[in-house]
């Protein structure tokens, strides 16, 4: 790897493209986000603190964080599995299945929420089988997790899939011919290669889930302290025309997501460095 960061590209046009990139990122990301920041400033520090630490609001962060974590965790396990099946096997209807994975991206999330809710209410198709066992899904944190799992699936599959595709099958074969068990091959050969993609998928699914509103609001039941997600708190503040309060909670959510993304980026850089060093030695 070269130590020079600003390597001159053989393609011309760094100036205009960089300029365009800055403009685009500013217009699409920075300016709207700074609007939240500016609205929040209108509150003053002590009001801000009161708004964002109110017990009900704190309960909603906790719920949003925990259900998002659970959903992203579930998606890591099953998303990797789905990606694995899609990359490694050929079967009829594979193209269709591959397309289905993206559906949660394309579907309006409110539709997903309404559909999931009608499935999981006690008299719904799935809910009526769970109800006799005393398992309530709709209107509980489980329901929220289900909705968040649904919307997060493509993130894991689509980040892991290309990495799996480029993975050399010979390496696995070499491992097993050298006497590695299938489990060893998976954990010591394949997983380390996949890990950065898995982590990226996890984080994308997680941060997407953190801010999800449409699909969750229908299935959550919206009970204060129990199933009230943070985006709903923002909506309730807007409904009272309390723009500043809404912006304050939004700001905290923004901060959480941002911290997470930075942590993950850091982790990835660290991981890549370690791996390239390790490769250099051998």
């Amino acid at each position: 790897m070269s130590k020079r960061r600003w390597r001159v590209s053989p393609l011309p046009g760094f100036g205009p493209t960089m300029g365009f990139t800055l403009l685009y990122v500013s217009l699409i990301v920075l300016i709207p986000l700074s609007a939240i920041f500016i609205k929040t400033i209108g509150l003053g520090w002590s009001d801000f603190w009161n708004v964002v630490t109110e017990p009900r609001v704190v309960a909603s962060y906790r719920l949003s964080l925990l259900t998002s974590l659970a959903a992203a965790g579930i998606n890591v396990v099953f998303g990797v599995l789905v990606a694995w099946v899609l990359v490694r096997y050929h079967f009829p209807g594979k193209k269709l299945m591959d397309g289905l994975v993206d559906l949660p991206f394309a579907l309006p999330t409110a539709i997903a929420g309404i559909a999931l809710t009608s499935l999981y209410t006690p008299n719904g198709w799935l809910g009526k089988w769970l109800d006799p066992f005393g398992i309530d899904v709709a209107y509980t944190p489980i329901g929220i997790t289900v909705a968040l799992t649904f919307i997060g699936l493509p993130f894991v599959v689509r980040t892991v899939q290309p990495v799996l595709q480029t993975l050399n099958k010979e390496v696995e074969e070499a491992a097993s011919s050298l006497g590695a068990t299938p489990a060893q091959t998976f954990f010591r050969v394949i997983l380390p290669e996949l890990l950065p993609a898995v982590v990226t998928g996890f984080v994308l699914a997680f941060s997407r889930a953190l801010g999800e509103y449409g699909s969750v609001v229908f299935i959550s039941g919206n009970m204060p302290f129990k199933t009230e997600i943070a985006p709903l708190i923002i909506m309730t503040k807007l409904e009272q025309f309390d723009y500043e309060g809404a912006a304050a909670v939004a700001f905290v959510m923004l901060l959480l997501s941002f911290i997470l993304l930075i942590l993950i980026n850091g982790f990835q850089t660290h991981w890549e460095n370690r791996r390239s060093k390790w490769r250099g030695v051998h």
Partner: protein
Amino acid sequence: MVGCSASQGEGGATQLLNVSYDPTREFYQEYNQAFAKHWQAETGEKVTFRQSHGGSGKQGRAVIDGLDADVVTLALGYDIDAIQEVGKIEEGWQNRLEHNSSPYTSTIVFLVRKGNPKGIKDWDDLLKDDVEVITPNPKTSGGARWNYLAAWAYALENNNGDEKKAKAFVKELYTHVPVLDSGARGSTTTFVERGIGDVLLAWENEAFLALNELDKDKFEIVAPSLSILTEPPVAVVDQVVDKKGTRKVAEAYLEYLYSEEGQELAAKHYYRPINPDVQKKYEDQFPELNLITVDDTFGGWQKAQQTHFSDGGIFDQIYSK
């Protein structure tokens, strides 16, 4: 959930945008046609309409943030007050048209399952042990605020105006609520389609809709001994009509709601007309109830909102730990 339907007239026709709340969609579709006909007969001018529907508060915010509504027809005076506060509507809007600028009214009733298996007759019955009540969240739904205030008014009336007891009553009532949907239509779906709960607190016109358009044999309406007069008000958005030069037709549009034809249409869509003649014609449809008003019992919407629904208000205290 904003629906826009543009009826295309010939070129040069004036176009009005009516920003309204969810359940009025069908009513205004019909009313717009009636008014267009009336206006053309009267002045020879053509007028076409766009309609926008959604939660009342959200619609109010859209207008505040720049949606160029000529008229707003919302669920609560509070939401129009908010538009007034930013200067888009002049002060005193609620006195500009008769009857608090509310050309039609409604009330809060109970929708119960056929045969009323839990024997729900009045607000007290909602506190029975095995009764589940469906109502949306007053923090996110304008309609739900009326439900809550109706319950409060009932408790006040039955406890000689003791606010503490009213609070205890309402607190107890909300422990019977298993799901707080974010909007009124959502609650109707929860009750009607998903079969959850024993009683839905609903606007009378929504209850009629559920009864007549969805499933006649599954539900019945119960009118409690006391309820609240819901007054969904209408107003011209001054700043917009002056800019667009549509003031005359916008004002006529709202005034025509008070005409016999407007009143008939409102009644047909299950709103209570305020014109005594039309009222008489539909008296079988609308049972007489003991109705209190927000102004008399709660000192107006601003005060009701402050006391009950703003952050830290009584509704929050009900749910605080």
